[in-house]
């Protein structure tokens, strides 16, 4: 909506700014300036912890991309996109399209319960899922033994192969309820006539999904993709609570590396370099998603 805010006759043009100022100042001091300082310090190198810093151009960045540590952490972040984003979105889409067009009594209750993981602290989620994966009493191994598949029961979070997907499944558990709720409310907005028209044309359920449901859900898909991908790239608490990057760095993620380099190894400028790269990646991905979906939204109309 185009909004031409008006001033009273004789009202100072700074009046609006006065209302804005307290929030703006706090934001600038405690969020915006620190971000700028992070970017600036990524071009420096500290000679001692509190001493002078020297300007080193892009040296930190070069070092970053020459060592495998950062790249493998970043790779794990991208693996997490599969669990944070791809799995929950496809599962949520499947559930929503299966359920939305039939009036199922009690649906509200299910929806409410599905959404619960979203409001929990990630540390709580981590504690719960560590129990799920517990080698002795965890339900997953108990179930495998009950099936007679004793040989598959193992210490999931201690395994080089399975630790990353195991943490990923906990993340998927958090995210898909959110995706499903989002899509359910989106489908309700698609006019019934569109479905009726396509079923008169003899389209099967899959074609209906492809030609009516999916295009109708573009705004929700864009929100879901953006939110879940950013969450996958930002992940910190969940990994900290579940594995702390172990075993042998197989669940190491960028957020954890930044924390370690900054607050355990005290190399602030190197950690700042990682934070800057991560921030740029997040901004870039958000911009791309935004652009792509703006275009396809226009195409759908």
């Amino acid at each position, binding site marked *: *909506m185009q*909004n031409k*805010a*008006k001033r009273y006759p004789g*009202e100072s*043009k700074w009046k*609006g700014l*006065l*209302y*804005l100022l307290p*929030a703006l100042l*706090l*934001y*600038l001091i*405690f*969020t*915006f*300036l*620190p971000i700028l*300082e992070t970017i600036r*310090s990524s071009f420096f190198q500290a000679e001692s912890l509190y001493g002078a810093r020297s300007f080193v151009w892009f040296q930190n960045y070069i070092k970053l991309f020459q060592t495998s540590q950062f790249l493998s952490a970043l790779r794990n972040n991208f693996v997490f996109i599969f669990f944070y984003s791809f799995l929950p979105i496809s599962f949520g889409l499947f*559930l929503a399209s*299966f359920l939305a067009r*039939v*009036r*199922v009594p009690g649906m509200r209750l*299910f929806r409410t*319960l*599905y*959404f*619960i993981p979203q*409001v929990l*602290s*990630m*540390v*709580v989620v981590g*504690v*719960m*899922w*560590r*129990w*799920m994966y517990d080698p002795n009493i965890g339900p997953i191994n108990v179930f495998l033994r009950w099936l007679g598949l004793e040989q598959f029961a193992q210490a999931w979070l201690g395994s080089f192969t399975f630790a990353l997907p195991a943490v990923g499944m906990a993340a998927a558990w958090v995210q898909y*309820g*959110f995706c499903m*709720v989002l899509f359910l409310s989106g489908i309700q907005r698609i006019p019934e006539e569109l479905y009726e028209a396509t079923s008169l044309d003899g389209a099967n359920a899959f074609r209906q999904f492809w030609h009516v449901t999916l295009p109708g859900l573009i705004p929700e898909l864009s*929100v879901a993709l*953006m*939110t879940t991908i950013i969450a996958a790239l930002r992940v*910190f*608490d969940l990994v*900290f*609570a579940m594995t702390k990057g172990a075993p042998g760095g197989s669940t190491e993620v960028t957020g954890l590396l*930044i*924390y370690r380099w900054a*607050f355990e190894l005290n190399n*602030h400028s190197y950690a700042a370099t990682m934070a*800057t790269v*991560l921030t740029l990646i*997040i*901004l870039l991905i958000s911009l791309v998603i935004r652009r792509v979906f703006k275009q396809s939204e226009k195409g759908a109309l």
Partner: protein
Amino acid sequence: MKPTFRKLIPHYLLLCLVLFFVLLPLWGMLSKAFENPDPGSFGALANFKRAWTVGKFGLFFKNSIIVALIVTAISVLLSILSGYAFGKLSVSGKSLLLPLILLGYMVPFDAAIIPLYNWMRSLGLTDTLWALILPQIGLSVSFGTLWMSSYFESLPDELVDQATIDGCSRWQVLWKVLMPIARPASSTLIVLIFMWTWNEFLLALVMIQKESLRTLPVGLAFFQGRYSANIPLMAAGAIIVALPTLLLYIFFQKQFLQGLSSGAIKG
């Protein structure tokens, strides 16, 4: 379309199967927490009592409540003011300021944490709750401003004009005319900011070294490091952390579903 119950059986089967996977970890935590370690000592709440006192969760709870209440109250108030400025007043430089604020809401907190820590330490504020409160207000107002301003913008200008003709000042227009209508939007903001602050982890981990000043999520993480073998005790601790946001969610479902579905990114 009115389906018969028979036709709905596959739907309910699927719904219940999914529900089983959602509730299994939650149920596990609950049943473990009520497990009695040595019968006859405290009864069913033994683990909670131990977590509360021995695990110091009572102390962490107090810290979490203080931080979350102050951050929520100040952030929501300031966001209402700034959202009003963007939505219904003339602000010079608005087209520049809005993207600037949007940035703070999209960028990960890792991008700010290192300078924040250094500044807070040089001010002597690390190991105080201020080191958690101030940055979280700064972060919350970025989302809050965008949230409130898009809401105020959606309200018709005639409301403001009419009230102005009736002799209301800008301040009165906000609190007497707009805020009564904006109550749903502002209560959504309240529950979201409270939840994010309650669950915040990185800042609390970095800024606080003293055990007595920890918040609940960090307290739970350290607790897990020490008592990882005692699952019932840890489960009780986890429930203490989760209960307030769960209760809030049960009472304010509509606000949570609406707020998070509109693309509010979890902090």
